[in-house]
């Protein structure tokens, strides 16, 4: 048998051995058997020295081709084997992705905080700052400086908890208006909101003896009722959605004149009328008005030079509207099954 045939034989056997090799180890053995230092192909090449100088290059070329062929197949088979092994491993590693994920305890802000922050952020964006004041307040700031002298019948609108005859739990965040103006006067502008707890002697499904208000106040050279309407319309749209309409109804607060109550179009029914809005299409959300001249004067501003507006809203009321709650007491019961929903 000539070398040429021998080479062809080797090639044929090598290819066959490679395809039947079932593991990386088998394949490696095949490689060693044919291409190794003591492999068959190497053995053949070693015998080339005996060839004539005409034959040598020709056989050499054939031998090279055989080697290349074997190496290429070896490579191919190797990657084939690797692929199938990876496949097997991956399939063995498959997990049940429907098992629950690792549990992290995530808490929640109280819905009143969430809503307060939303309101704060809207007014911060409009250039208001946040002011704070005491919850135990003097009669003077809670009432008298707001144009509610002792024995004023409008004091009945706010049933008050007293600590002493002159100190009380604030019934509204409005005293922060007065404190802020006293501190700021005669500088302009005054532009604040004042969130916080307030207290009234009421306790039922729609009233809580403690609740939260956000007061707003803007005083400057030329502030008008139209500005009040504009600012509150912006607020209504940002808080309740761009479709929201607002409506101003005349009302009465001793510390504003003119005074108004603001309704927004009912988001539940789109103004058609439903249970939530008592079939009126409107929801009352806040009270407001132009700061009463006497309040400006008492706080150190000249009411013929400056005007201002003020507004006050109940955070519980707005929270209940936003989340469609029907019982205010849920907000103070702190049942985690409730808190976890927000």
């Amino acid at each position, binding site marked *: 048998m000539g070398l040429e045939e021998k080479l062809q034989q080797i090639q044929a056997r090598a290819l066959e051995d490679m395809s039947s090799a079932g593991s990386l180890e088998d394949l490696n053995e095949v490689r060693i058997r044919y291409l190794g230092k003591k492999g068959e192909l190497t053995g053949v090449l070693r015998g080339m020295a005996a060839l004539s100088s005409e034959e040598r290059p020709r056989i050499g070329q054939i031998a090279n081709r055989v080697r290349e062929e074997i190496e290429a197949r070896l490579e191919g088979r190797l990657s084939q084997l690797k692929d199938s092994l990876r496949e097997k491993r991956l399939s063995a590693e498959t997990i049940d992705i429907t098992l629950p994920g690792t549990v992290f305890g995530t808490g929640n802000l109280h819905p009143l905080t969430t809503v307060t922050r939303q309101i704060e952020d809207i007014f911060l*964006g409009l250039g208001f700052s946040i002011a704070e004041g005491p919850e135990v307040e003097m009669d003077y700031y809670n009432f008298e400086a707001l144009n509610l002298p002792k024995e004023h019948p409008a004091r009945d609108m706010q049933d008050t908890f007293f600590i002493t005859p002159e100190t009380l739990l604030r019934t509204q965040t409005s005293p922060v208006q007065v404190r802020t103006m006293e501190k700021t006067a005669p500088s302009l502008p005054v*532009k604040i909101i004042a969130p916080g707890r307030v207290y009234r*002697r009421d306790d039922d499904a729609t009233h809580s003896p403690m609740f939260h208000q956000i007061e707003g106040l803007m005083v400057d050279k030329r502030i008008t009722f*139209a500005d009040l309407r504009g600012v509150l319309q912006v607020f209504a749209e940002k808080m309740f959605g761009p479709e929201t309409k607002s409506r101003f109804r005349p009302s009465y607060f001793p510390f504003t004149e003119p005074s108004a109550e603001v309704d927004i179009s009912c988001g539940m029914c789109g103004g058609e009328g439903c249970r939530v809005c008592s079939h009126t299409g409107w929801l009352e959300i806040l009270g407001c008005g132009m700061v009463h001249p006497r309040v400006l004067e008492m706080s150190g501003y000249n009411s013929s030079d400056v005007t201002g507006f003020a507004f006050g809203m109940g955070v519980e009321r707005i929270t209940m509207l936003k989340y469609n709650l029907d019982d205010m007491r849920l907000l*103070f019961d702190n049942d985690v099954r409730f*808190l976890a929903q927000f």
Partner: protein
Amino acid sequence: MMRVSLKWLRDYVDITIPVRELADRLTMAGLAVEGVESPGEGIEKVYSGKILQISPHPNADRLTICRVTLGQGEDLNIVTGATNVREGHVVPVAVEGARLAGGLVIKKSKLRGVESRGMLCSGQELGLDTSVMPSDQAHGIMLLDPSTPLGLDIKGVIGLDDTILDLELTPNRGDCLSMVGVAREVAALLGERLSLPDTSAVGSGLEIEGMARVDIIDPGLCSRYVARLFRNIKIGPSPAWMQDRLRAAGIRPISNLVDITNYVMIELGQPLHAFDYDTLKDGHIIVRRAEKGEKMVTLDGSERNLSEDMLVIADPGGPVAVAGVMGGLATEVTEKTVNVLLESAHFNPVSIRRTARSLGMRSEASSRFEKGVDPVACLRAADRAARLLLELGAGEVAPGAVDSYPVRSVPKTVVLKPGRVEHVLGVEVPGQEIVSILRSLEFTVNDSGGELLVTVPSHRQDVFLEEDLIEEIARMHGYNRIPYTLPAGSGTIGARTPRQSLEVGVKDTMTSLGFYETVTYSFTAPSTLDRAGLPPDSPLRNVLRLQNPLSEEQSIMRTLLLPGLLEVLQRNASRRTTDLALFETGRIFLPSGDGQLPLEKQVLAAAAMGSAPSGWNRAGQPHDFYYMKGVLEALLDRLGLRGYSFAKESGHSLFHPGKAARVTVGEAVIGVLGEIHPDVLENYSLPQSVSAMEVDFEVLAELSGRPRKYRPLPKFPGIERDLSLVVKKEIPAQDITRTIRKSGGQYLQEVRLFDIYHGGQVPAGCQSMAFSLKFQAEDRTLTDQEVNGWMTTVSEALAGQFGAGLRS
């Protein structure tokens, strides 16, 4: 609340628009219509019928058979259990197919074997409020005026063919606590004319002059007192129309005379009082302050102690009424009354309010006086009552009136600059419109060269200032016709203060650590102090007390936040949620000296029970001391607080003395944390241990504002070494760590305790602690030999200080 009968209202003004629209217009003008009731809605086939004969029921003692006629058609036999009907009575009769209030439908039926072809109705069955029915008719069949024509639809007979507007009035609009006041607004809104009720009354017999005398001793509290005298009164029921109207207004008819006074009060807003003239000594009315120690029995039968700041109506024998608040029993009008002295007066609102409140007697009259009634209208109201008395044929009227009017009401004049209207409203209202609005509300307007001189009508006690007039103009012009604008002028930047941002950060950190935010009341029960185990001398027992709490449970202001959270834990535990973590930020109230406001301190409190959430692949970390400590450390780290340390806290009553710590930075105490004392757990019925902390927000704010500075990242690798030592259990880990840090040299960057072990070969009373130490230099790579040297120093220091043995 003012209930306005539309039928009644139409006496004074023409209403040409649908009632819904009227309600809207009133609401948008500031008279909020809270409800529109149609009391007769749904009531059908009920007629006036006369009982011809009553015969006993053959099979039932408690039932009778009434033969009833409706004036036409055949008579009806109706079985009834009512006991107040007699032959000849005219009553509401529901026939077959009738519909009553609440939707009840009447069918032909047999009652104990006798056919009944309908039903005799009570007021309640027709939808009337029994609280405003005459007491003898509140239960049983409603008895109609015997002269009522038969066969009429009952709705027209008893005033159910009416519509009632429920007005929720603001306290400034006392003038609208009257039908005429509301009619005046309606007339202005609709551009209609207002017609006032007839007050002409022809007197007869002797003049009042010489029969009655009025002396006002304190004109500051009573500016006017009008008296009229009625004679030969025949006390009886008032006519049906008057009863219907009073009922519609929510007032119970009593007798013709009392009804007249109430009717005029509702109609004109002026409270009236009727005295039995013959019980008044000398017919002499003295309006004065009560004398010290004076007493009087009021209409309701209770004896009242009067004080010197209360105004009374007296006769020479003593007080006969608490002015404007309640009459006296001795001078009350009764069935036997023959002559009546009628009072129509104007009292000081503040004095009335104070008196009514201190006697605990609020009445329709006092609430009107408080809000300010028209001082000019006293005489008109007295005359109107006289007119009604004659109309009802209830008696005679003595000619003339005693009108004591020491303080004349002077009309107020307010200057209005039309430019100011635009300045305040931000919209120009034409001058002509301004004038016509004000005139429609009965203001008198004189143009004095650009400025308007506006005279306020006497019924508008709430208008003093230019702004008050601007409000009148705005509400009649229409609030919603004023444009939306945004304030011009200096722009401002809105931002939270660092302190406010800190609160946002604290809350966000706490929630991300798995805590739920709660909001609890700022007031609590005094027993909280005991349940929290506070010692008798604890400064936290010095609390603010409410003078008028709703209940004992809410009678003091809290000096601690944690008890509120323990209550919340307990409430949740009782609903079977036992694994939870909560926090609250809020104020505690610490009393200061006399006359000063208390110190209000913002506090963060957190409490946790059970364990953190667990799953199939992770055990829940128990909510123990170390959990809470980790939370606090995470919070402080997040806020950028450095250099805090923990010290044992065994003197805080809320906490377990062996499982509590105080957190400090230098001298400043940030807060306390620990596991709740077992006694306190028991006081709150908590089923398992609770870890908690209370952190002083003010201190936190002070310390956390410090700016952070960047430190370059290390360029050379560090070397980590572990150190295992056996020490006595009672040596605090903090002390060991401190010693390691002190002795470890300048390149020791980090000391971390990663394992604690006892038992096994560790001697009793000792534990093995494993620390990981990291050495690193900024300018070079450290060598093993260097690090070995420092490790030796550390070991020696530990051995010297704590007798710590090294473990390999």
